């Protein structure tokens, strides 16, 4: 199923179900870049963990900063904790948090949707999704920064670096035929690796996307939800 902008949640549900049932047992972080209504690029994250002081989510954000797509959806898995219990208690629920951003006339429109799931005797049960505050998304600020600030790197070379780090990229067939993005990635050069790693490290240090939820108050605020017809008073 090729996800479209208006049906991305359906596609992400199918992907998450397949990941939980047949894959690693958790939804793989998935990044969808939309050029128009059609998906242009699909990036799935590598195995969670630290690589040269940088987590996998910050590495994925570099392709968002390189390819300044007008619409981006990013789904990451998370856990909900009961605040009244101790920190080592079992998580109350497993969730998939889908952050989306769309460029519009006056700025960017962020949304965050949360999708709970649990296993019922080896059957994956995905609950109905609800909107949550954008600040509660673990990658909301990271996505906001990456989408606002072009890194100036070549997207194809950034993608080749990410592929060498274990992320997988998929491109729909019609884009390959149109020559919109290159189907075969060139081997990454050392300066590409260096630049991509520098940007990922900078984003990682600033946003701490895999840190516990208390780190959220140290993240920069997300300027979003400006009502239509208005402008953000502060450009920062």
């Amino acid at each position, binding site marked *: 199923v090729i996800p479209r902008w208006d049906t991305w949640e*359906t596609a992400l549900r199918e992907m998450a179900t397949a990941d939980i049932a047949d894959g690693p047992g958790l939804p793989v972080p998935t990044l969808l870049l939309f050029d128009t209504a059609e998906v242009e690029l699909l990036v799935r994250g590598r195995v969670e963990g630290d690589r040269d002081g940088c987590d996998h989510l910050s590495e994925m954000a570099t392709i968002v900063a390189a390819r300044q797509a007008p619409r981006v959806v990013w789904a990451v898995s998370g856990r909900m904790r009961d605040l009244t219990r101790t920190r080592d208690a079992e998580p109350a629920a497993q969730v998939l948090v889908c952050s989306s951003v769309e460029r519009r006339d006056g700025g960017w429109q962020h949304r965050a949707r949360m999708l709970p799931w649990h296993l019922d005797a080896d059957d994956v049960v995905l609950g109905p999704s609800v909107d949550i505050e954008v600040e509660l998304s673990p990658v909301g600020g990271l996505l906001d920064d990456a989408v606002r600030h072009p890194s*100036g790197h070549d997207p194809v070379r950034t993608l080749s670096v990410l592929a060498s780090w274990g992320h997988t990229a998929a491109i729909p067939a019609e884009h390959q035929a149109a020559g919109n993005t290159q189907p075969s990635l060139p081997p990454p050069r050392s300066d590409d690796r260096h630049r991509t790693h520098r940007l990922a490290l900078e984003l990682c240090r600033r946003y701490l996307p895999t840190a516990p939820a208390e780190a959220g108050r140290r993240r920069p605020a997300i300027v979003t939800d400006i009502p239509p017809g208005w402008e953000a008073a502060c450009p*920062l």
Partner: protein
Amino acid sequence: MLVPTLRRSAAVTAPSWHEPVATARREAERPLSRGLTVRPTLVAFEGDEPTLYVRSRLVWDHFVDRDLVCRELVALPALLGQSRLLVVSPGRLTDPSVDDPVLADALADRAVTVDVAERDDQGGLATSGYVLPYTLGDDGHPTWDAPIHLPDGGPWAATAKQVLTGGCHLDDDGRLGPAGFAYALSRRGMVIAVAPDWRTRYDLDRPVNPRLVRSEDRRRAQRHSSRQRHPTTAAGGPT
């Protein structure tokens, strides 16, 4: 199958000074229909034209410092000195015959309050307000009951009066300016928007003093002044 609603609303209606009830209902329906809570929102008008929009970061519940919310919300209108304010705020309708405050809170009807405050040319103040009770349907959309008029103003009347009389003077030594205040507030997560025609008149396009910008936001501040990374697509690389 659930499909996310990510499209812009078709009818964009600006806040109207002459229709406070309709404005407050529109403003409350946007978060309520998405399952979120209403946050205190202030719209300042110059004449009949809405010029400044401030929405608080904090959810208005029992745990927030309400004085802090008030101060953050009215800081910029107090500095810019608009003469007409409209404050939309979440509220509730309790039954006074119930003695227990916890029980009264549990039995209360959900509502939105809207406060209207105006300073005329002679310096006279006029405040009034409405309480707009609603019930949330199964689809999450609110159904509005008849508005209740408050001739003397709602819970924000005292604050609005203080702002309009110049009672909350901000100690600005010129370094900060309106743009600095907007940055300092928006970095706390507040939504501050300005009508496009009024950005220059309110001196909001002046760049923020970089010494006041915290390190997390420095990259955004330096976006226009310096190129931190050079494009790799150019033949020569960084120059």
